[in-house]
């Protein structure tokens, strides 16, 4: 065990943990939003993320014409490229998530099919997407161009405030704040909350259930697309199975925070990111997964509905 690195690099590990954790949080919204409304796990969300990362690659290389080994760009050109990549990935992911809902969920829901059928349908969609990309890319990882030069704002107590890290943290928090406001204050948000409380009562109140479900998938897709953008900007690579590990982590974050709960997803992701960084630093990287899942099991033993699970119940009643 190496505790000295924690004392000397505490803030650096915190900063990296927060950045990674917020990426998890954004993806976990795709799980938690759908679960909140349908009480189903959208297993295809990890592949929505994967497609998002490839869409960024497509935009940057094929649409904007940047070679993989291009020099970083600056000014308006950079801003335009980043915005186009972000918005493009969010739209692609939102559309794909809506398509997943239409193909894998809606018909089964309409027929009142067993929940297990929807679960298998989602897993099938997930495998279809990842295997398609595996064939398409010959299983080979793809590198994305470094458009953003990774300059730093400065180092405080060993924490390197690099532009990509800061951008991911600030933008992720802004997205969460906007989504929280939307769900809690807007009319459509109220409809989502109503459906999450009671599908039957919502229908009786005149809420268009299909519309709310589609909207929920779209929102999950939008946040997952944003996560794909920040992931690609920081790590600059993707492959057909990139969604698997990230998806497992994000799902874990959602369960840790209390699945179905927006704030739970946010804090669950943060907790997971920090946990991974500190477990790697203290115990060695090979113990990261062991530690994370041990903590998850312990949390669920003590609080089966996750850290924020109780709060969800209270808001629902």
């Amino acid at each position, binding site marked *: 065990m190496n505790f000295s690195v924690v004392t000397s690099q505490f803030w650096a590990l915190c900063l990296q943990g927060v950045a990674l954790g917020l990426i998890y949080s954004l993806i976990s919204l795709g799980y938690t939003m759908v679960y909140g409304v349908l009480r189903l796990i959208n297993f295809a969300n990890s592949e929505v993320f994967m497609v998002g990362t490839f869409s960024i690659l497509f935009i940057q290389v094929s649409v904007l014409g940047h070679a993989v*080994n291009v020099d970083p760009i600056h000014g308006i050109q950079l801003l335009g490229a980043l915005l186009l990549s972000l918005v493009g990935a969010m739209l692609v992911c939102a559309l794909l998530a809506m398509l997943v809902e239409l193909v894998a969920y809606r018909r089964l829901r309409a027929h009142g099919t067993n929940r297990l059928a929807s679960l298998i349908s989602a897993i099938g969609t997930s495998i279809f997407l990842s295997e398609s990309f595996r064939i398409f890319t010959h299983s080979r*990882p793809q*590198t994305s161009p470094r458009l953003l030069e990774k300059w730093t704002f400065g180092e405080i107590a060993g924490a390197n405030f690099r532009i990509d890290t800061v951008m991911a943290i600030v933008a992720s928090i802004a997205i969460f704040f906007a989504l929280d406001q939307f769900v809690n204050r807007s009319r459509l948000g109220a409809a989502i909350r109503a459906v999450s409380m009671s599908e039957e009562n919502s229908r009786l109140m005149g809420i268009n259930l299909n519309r709310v479900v589609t909207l929920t998938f779209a929102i999950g897709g939008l946040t997952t697309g944003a996560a794909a953008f920040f992931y690609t900007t920081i790590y600059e*690579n993707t492959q057909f199975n*990139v969604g698997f590990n990230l998806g497992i982590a994000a799902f874990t974050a959602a369960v840790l925070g209390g699945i179905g709960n927006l704030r739970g997803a946010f804090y669950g992701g943060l907790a997971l990111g920090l946990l991974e960084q500190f477990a790697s*630093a203290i115990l060695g*990287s*090979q113990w990261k997964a062991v530690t994370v899942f041990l903590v998850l099991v312990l949390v669920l033993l003590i609080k089966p509905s996750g850290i924020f699970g109780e709060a969800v119940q209270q808001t629902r009643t």
Partner: protein
Amino acid sequence: MNKNSKHVLAVVAASALALGTVVTSQASAAPKEVTIMFQGPLTGGDAQLGQDQLPGAIFAIAEYNATNPKVKIKLEKADSQCDGTVAANIAPGVAANKKVIGVIGTSCSGEARNSFPSYIAAGLTMVSPSATAVGLTDPKAPDRGYPIFHRVLANDKFQAPALVKVGAKGVTSPKFYIVDDLTTYGAGLALYAMPAAKKAGTIVGTDSVTKGTADYSSVSTKVKASGANVVLYAGYTQDGAKFVKSLRDSGYTGVFAAGDGVNTSDLPGLTGKAGEGLRLVAPDVPFDLLVTKEKLAAFTKATGVKVPGLYVTSTYDAANVFIACIKKGKLTRAGIQSCVAQGTFDGVSGAKIKFDRYGDIIGGAPVGEFVVKGDKIDYVGIA
């Protein structure tokens, strides 16, 4: 001629006829084509390793078939993606294919280890161009490849000290940080690098990051905090590229040196500028430095590859081990196995290849030093 003599003559004549029939039937049953399998990563994250090697086998077999031999060789490919699990799944199929009399491969050590059960049971000989893990030929290792596994290059007992030497070159008071990827190859190479690193300087830290990890920021932070000036990485290209990018982004300016798993032609493209000056080793000497211009032109004509990648030399040698045995009329798995185990073969460098009882090349083989310059990996010399 007395009665006894007539009897003897009759028996001899009958025996001769019978023998003749047997010989004739054997001759007519002799295959006109045998199959050699190339097994390694042809798709997946480590595909470049196999794609770099394959032309060596294609060229050797094309050269042989061009001489119009009685028995031609067909080269088939088995894609085990440098993944032990995939290898374990496909090896039974390769072993069951009776046409296959030998395997050029595997490329990676984990693939080899997981293929052993099928190939040992089937008596299918392997000659690997790049699986370097020591355990594969360790007489004491329970999962060694004896008696079917052989390799035409030095193992990690030779590569690991060379990696340390290349990493520490020109560095005063080297402080090593050693990272592996927890694979059969990576963990072994890191383990064998430790004693040499302790001799050459100080080990200030070690870590193991699972192959396929996306985020290397934690280990990069640890490297920086440790004050290391030489990072030794034992793993494969994709993760090596992610690690070196993360290290450079974290502000680390010291040496980054890696073993042959990272030494594939796609590395500079994956690392971008972060890979500049990256030091590499590999128990191989580039093919184009060993052969004549005419032979290189013939290689390009046969394979379509202008610049031979790493391990073309050893793959060419591995293919020629089988070709030499086939030339001697060894057309069965058993015949190939005894021929490979007992024979002495010519390497493209001019050195003789002979295997010890457990499949390692007797007398070892050179380990080369390489460096990333721009979008190329340059050969420096013997490490």
